[in-house]
C-alpha cells in the first residue's frame, strides 16, 4: 500500500456534436477510498467513467493509474491495467449458471472446479453470499449484481467503478452492498461510486467530486455537508427554494362527479365514482401507489377516454364527451407520465412535438394546415423559458435526457396558459434541478390563477406543492384534506385504503 493516488485524471475533455460532455476534469482517487462522482443526469459522469474504462477516448487531458499513464484502447486494456466496472444494466445470460457467466467474462478462465472454489472464496471474503451453481434466471436483482461484482473482484482490480448500483436494489440489499464495498476499500481497492442519491453518498463515501455541465465544480467530504448543500452544488444556482406564495383559491374551475369507468385492459384499474373539485389558483395533489388508477384518471381528464355525460365539467361546461383536442381548446390540458411515446413522439423533433398538443391554443394549426415556423418559434420559446438543454428545436425528442424532455413536455402545456392542467408523475426519473424547475412552474401556473392537479407517487412532492390532498386507491378517490399540518404518517394511512380514509376524516 502506498500513499500515492490509485487514479488521477488531469484536464480531461470530451466533446460530442453539440455537447461538451467533459471539460477540464481533474480529480484524484486515493487507495482504499470510496469516491463519489456526483452530478445530475447529463452532467458528464457516464462519459467520464467510460473513458476510464476504455469505452470512449478523451479528446484532451491524461489519466494516471498506479503511477502509469492510463490510455486504454478498449475495455480489455482497461481491465488488464486494473480497472473493473459494474454497470447499471447487467450483462448476464439467464440460462447459464453463476460460474458459467463469470467464466464467460474472463480473459483466461481457470478450470470450472477451480473457478467455483475461487468464487466461493471471494463471496465469503467480502460477504457476498452466492451459490456458483445456480442459474442466473433464478436470481434477484441484488444477487445478479453480486455476480457482476464477483466477476470484477476475481480480476483483483485496483479501481472498481460502480455505476448507480443501488438503483435496482432493495434497502436491505443496498446495506449489504455498502458493507462489501467497505471491506473492499479496507483491502486498499479504490472505488469510484456514481450516483445522484445524496443520502447514500453522505453516509458511505469518503470523498465526493461534483460535476456540473461537464466540469468539476467542487470536491468535498460529503459527510460534512447536508444533502441540501450537496444538491445545491450539484445543480448550481438553479436550486431555488420553492415559492408557494401569492396563491388564493378562487372560483371552481373543474368539477368531477360520479366518474366511473371500466378497466381499459386486463391489467388496468377501473375508476369508481371519482369526485373532485378544483378551484382557481389551487393545486390538488393526488397520491397513491402506481397502478391504482392514475393513468386511467389522467386519460379520463385528458379526453383519451370519454366518460358518462356530466361527469367532468370545466367552468360549468360538460367535457365528458369531448376528445382531447376540444378539451384543450376549452382550456383543460394534461401531461401524461410516460414522456417517450405518450406525452411525446420519440422520433419527432421538438418542433413537431409541439403540434401534438399546442396546435389549437397556440395557433400552430389553422384550418388543418400546419404553420411550421410558428411551431418552431413555440418550441424555441419553451426551450428558452424552461431551460431545456438541447442543440435546438430540430432535435428528436428521444435524444433528450429524461429531465430535459420532461421540462419540455411540462413547458409545452404550461406555456399554453391552461385553465386547468393535470400532470401525472411530473418529476419521475428527473434530476433534482429539473424537478425543482418543473415544480416551480406548476406553482407559478397556479399563482396566475389556473387550477393544477398533480398526480404523483412522490409524497414529498405532493406535500411541497399541493394545497389539498386526495388518495387514489384501487380506482377510488378519497375526500380531500388540506395539506397544511398533514404528516407523512397520516398520508400513509390514507393510502392504505378505506380505513385510512376514515382516520383521515377525523
Amino acid at each position, binding site marked *: 500500500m502506498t500513499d500515492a493516488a490509485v487514479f488521477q485524471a488531469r484536464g480531461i475533455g470530451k466533446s460530442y456534436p453539440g455537447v461538451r460532455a467533459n471539460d477540464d476534469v481533474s480529480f484524484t482517487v486515493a487507495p482504499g477510498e470510496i469516491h463519489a462522482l456526483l452530478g445530475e443526469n447529463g452532467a458528464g459522469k457516464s462519459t467520464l467513467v467510460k473513458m476510464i474504462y476504455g469505452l470512449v477516448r478523451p479528446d484532451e487531458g491524461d489519466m494516471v493509474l498506479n503511477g502509469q499513464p492510463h490510455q486504454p484502447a478498449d475495455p480489455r486494456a482497461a481491465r488488464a491495467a486494473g480497472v473493473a466496472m459494474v454497470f447499471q444494466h447487467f450483462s448476464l445470460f439467464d440460462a447459464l449458471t453463476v460460474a458459467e457467466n463469470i467464466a464467460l467474462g474472463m480473459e483466461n478462465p481457470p478450470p470450472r472446479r477451480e473457478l467455483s472454489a475461487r468464487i466461493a472464496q471471494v463471496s465469503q471474503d467480502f460477504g457476498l453470499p452466492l451459490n456458483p451453481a445456480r442459474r442466473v434466471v433464478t436470481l434477484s436483482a441484488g444477487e445478479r449484481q453480486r455476480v457482476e461484482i464477483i466477476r470484477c473482484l476475481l480480476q483483483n482490480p485496483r479501481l472498481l467503478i460502480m455505476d448507480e448500483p443501488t438503483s435496482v436494489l432493495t434497502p436491505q440489499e443496498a446495506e449489504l452492498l455498502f458493507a462489501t464495498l467497505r471491506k473492499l476499500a479496507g483491502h486498499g481497492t479504490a472505488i469510484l461510486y456514481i450516483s445522484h442519491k445524496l443520502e447514500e453518498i453522505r453516509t458511505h463515501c469518503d470523498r465526493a467530486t461534483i460535476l456540473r455541465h461537464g466540469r468539476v465544480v467542487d470536491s468535498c467530504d460529503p459527510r460534512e455537508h447536508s444533502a441540501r448543500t450537496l444538491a445545491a452544488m450539484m445543480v448550481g444556482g438553479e436550486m431555488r427554494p420553492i415559492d408557494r406564495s401569492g396563491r388564493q383559491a378562487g372560483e371552481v374551475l373543474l368539477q368531477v362527479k360520479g366518474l366511473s369507468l371500466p378497466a381499459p385492459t386486463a391489467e388496468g384499474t377501473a375508476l369508481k365514482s371519482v369526485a373532485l373539485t378544483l378551484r382557481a389558483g389551487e393545486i390538488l395533489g393526488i397520491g397513491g401507489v402506481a397502478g391504482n388508477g392514475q393513468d386511467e384518471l389522467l386519460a379520463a381528464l385528458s379526453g383519451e377516454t370519454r366518460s358518462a355525460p356530466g361527469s367532468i365539467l370545466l367552468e360549468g361546461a360538460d367535457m365528458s364527451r369531448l376528445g382531447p383536442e376540444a378539451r384543450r381548446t376549452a382550456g383543460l390540458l*394534461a401531461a*401524461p407520465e410516460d414522456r417517450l*411515446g405518450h406525452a411525446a413522439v*420519440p422520433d419527432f423533433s421538438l418542433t413537431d412535438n409541439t403540434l*401534438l*398538443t399546442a396546435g389549437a391554443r397556440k395557433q400552430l394549426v389553422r384550418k388543418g*394546415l400546419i404553420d411550421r415556423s410558428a411551431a418552431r418559434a413555440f418550441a424555441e420559446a419553451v426551450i428558452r423559458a424552461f431551460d431545456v438543454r438541447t442543440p435546438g428545436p430540430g432535435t428528436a425528442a428521444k*435524444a433528450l435526457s429524461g429531465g430535459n424532455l420532461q421540462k419540455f413536455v411540462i413547458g409545452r402545456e404550461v406555456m399554453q396558459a391552461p385553465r386547468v392542467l393535470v400532470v401525472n408523475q411530473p418529476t419521475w426519473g428527473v434530476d433534482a434541478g429539473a424537478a425543482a424547475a418543473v415544480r416551480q412552474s406548476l406553482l407559478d401556473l397556479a399563482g396566475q390563477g389556473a387550477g393544477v392537479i398533480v398526480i404523483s407517487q412522490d409524497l414529498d412532492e405532493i406535500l411541497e406543492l399541493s394545497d389539498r390532498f386526495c388518495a387514489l386507491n384501487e380506482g377510488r378517490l378519497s375526500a380531500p384534506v388540506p395539506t397544511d399540518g398533514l404528516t407523512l404518517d397520516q398520508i400513509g394511512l390514507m393510502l392504505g385504503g378505506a380505513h385510512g380514509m376514515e382516520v383521515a376524516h377525523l
Partner: protein
Amino acid sequence: MIRLVPRTEASAFWQIATPVMAVAATMLAGGLLFAIMGYDPVSAIRTIFWDPLFGPAAGYSRPQLLVKAAPLILIASGLAVGFRAGIWNIGAEGQYIIGAITGAAVALAAYPASEMWIFPAMVIAGALGGWAWGMIPALLRNWFGASEILVSLMLVYVAQRIAAWMAFGPMKNPEGFGMPGSRNLQQYPAASNPELIAGTGAHWGVVAAVITVLAIWFLMSRHIRGFHIRAAGTAPRAARFAGVKPQTLVAFCLGLSGALAGMAGLFEVAGPAGQITDKVGVGYGFTAIIVAFLGRLHPVGILLAGLLLALTYIGGELAQLTLNLPAATVQVFQGMLLFFLLGFDLLTRYRITRRVTA
C-alpha cells in the same frame, strides 16, 4: 466480428441510398441468375432496364411506361399513407378489381348514351367501389379487432371471383357472340379513357396519379391529419393523446387507399384493358406494395419507384420476346427488389461496426 449498433436517428443518407443499392443488387443477382440459366447476363439486364427506354423498339415500349406506372403510383400513394400509420392494407388488388367493376358498371348501364357526365361518373363510381371494398376490413377491425392484413388479403380472392362472375354473367357483352367479358369500353367514346397525348401513353390515370402524388405530399407534410398519421405509426399512444381516434384513422387510411386503388382499376378498365374479364386483376395491387416501400413511403420516392417497377414489367415482356426469358422473370425481379430493399434497410436503423471480440 461484425456488430450491429442501433442508430439514435435513422440515417438520412441511407434512407436514400438503400433503394438505389437494392436496385443495383437486384441487377447483380438477376444477372447471376441469368448467367446460371445460360443467358448472357449483360444483354438480359440491358434488355430489361435499358432497351424499353432507349432500345431499337423504344418507340413502342416507352409509352407503356406511363401506362404501367400510373396505376402503380396511384395505388402505392394510398397504401403508403396507411403504412405510415401502421395500417396494413395488403388487399389493394381486390379494391382495384372492385373499382374496375363498379366504374365499368356505370358505363355499361349508360350504354349507348353519350353524355359528358358518364366518364366522370365512372371515375367516382370506381373510387367508391374501391373505398367500399377497403371499408370492409376497416369496419371488421374497428368492430371486432380483426386483422386488416388478413381480411384485406382474403377479399382479393373474393373480388377475383366476383370479376369472373361479372365477366361470364351480368356484364357479359350481349353482342359478344357468347365470349366471356364485357363490352369493350375503348369502343364506347363517352366511357373510354384514351391516350391524351399521342405517343406518350398518358391517359387520365396518369393525370390522376400526378395529382395524387402532389395531394398526398401535401397531406403528409403540411396537414395536421398527415402529422397525426405519422405520429400514430411511430407512437400510437402519443397520437391518441394528441386527439387521434384510432378507429377514424383505420377507416380513413383503408378508405383512402381503397378509393385510389378503385380509381386505378377504373382507369385501367376504361383504357388499356378495355373490358371486364375474369383477368381484370393483373397484380398491380400487389406490386404497388413494393413500390410504396421502394419509394420509402414518400410521394416523390413512390413516383420514381413506380416508374422503375413499370420498367421491369415492360423490360420483362421485352426479354420474353427477344431472349425467350421465362415469364416469371418479372416476378423474380420484383421479389428480389423487395428482398434486397428490406435487407439493406437495416443500414438506415443500424450501423455496422467491426470490433475484435473480447
